[in-house]
């Protein structure tokens, strides 16, 4: 299974229910398996622990419920600056 296929169902389901989740569970962490919301938690680690307890090594999604998901950057990696020399 390609990287992009893992969690595809869960990510799509999260997008479908996001607006509803924002009303009731804003900033909490949703635990999703397939098309089931398994719970929402205050901390990322709590959601992960609940996921492991229920699903073990199977894949599951842990995603924070926010209006806009943050984007990230590692400029040194993206700009090939690690170990660069002149």
């Amino acid at each position, binding site marked *: 299974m390609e*990287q*992009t296929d*893992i*969690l595809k169902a869960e*990510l799509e389901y999260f997008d479908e229910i996001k607006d509803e989740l924002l009303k009731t569970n804003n900033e909490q962490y949703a635990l999703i398996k397939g098309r089931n919301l398994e719970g929402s938690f205050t901390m*990322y*680690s709590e959601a*992960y*622990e609940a*996921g*492991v*307890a229920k699903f*073990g*090594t*199977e*894949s*599951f*999604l*842990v*995603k924070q419920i926010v209006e806009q*998901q*943050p*984007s*990230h*950057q*590692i*400029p*040194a*990696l*993206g*700009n090939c600056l*690690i*170990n660069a*020399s002149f």
Partner: protein
Amino acid sequence: MPVFNGGITNQQTGLLDPKLLQQRGPLLQIEVSVPDVLANKLYQEKKPIPPPVTGLGLLDTGASITGVDVNALQQLSLSMINEVTMNHPGGEDKQGIYACQISFPGTQIEDIEFSAALGSNLKGQGLLAILGRDVLKDYQLVYNGPGGFWTIAG
């Protein structure tokens, strides 16, 4: 508060070398492993627990998120738990997030029992991980360029 001083020693002089620190950056030996909660689950189910992966971590205040080498994550049989948008010069991509534990052997720095780390291609850079601001937010970091050493406390 645990304190650790790091630097790179010149093999010939036996002294900390500011030039080596400039070239290679603030590196420390780290260990990436299966989170304890998952290890306990594997133990209960009588499944093998992949051994930790050791390597070099680069402290990077420019990184908004911690990245761990994808090969190491595969060795640990860790599954993706989320995806995030990564901005880079070519635009943006979606990349996977993995839960792992990060330890700092040889120091008194406490283990990070849960880190949501980005799967990154770091092996070619000689790195196991880039420790970003999501980790560094809990530490004080001082970089002494002329002295050729750095200090982390927390």
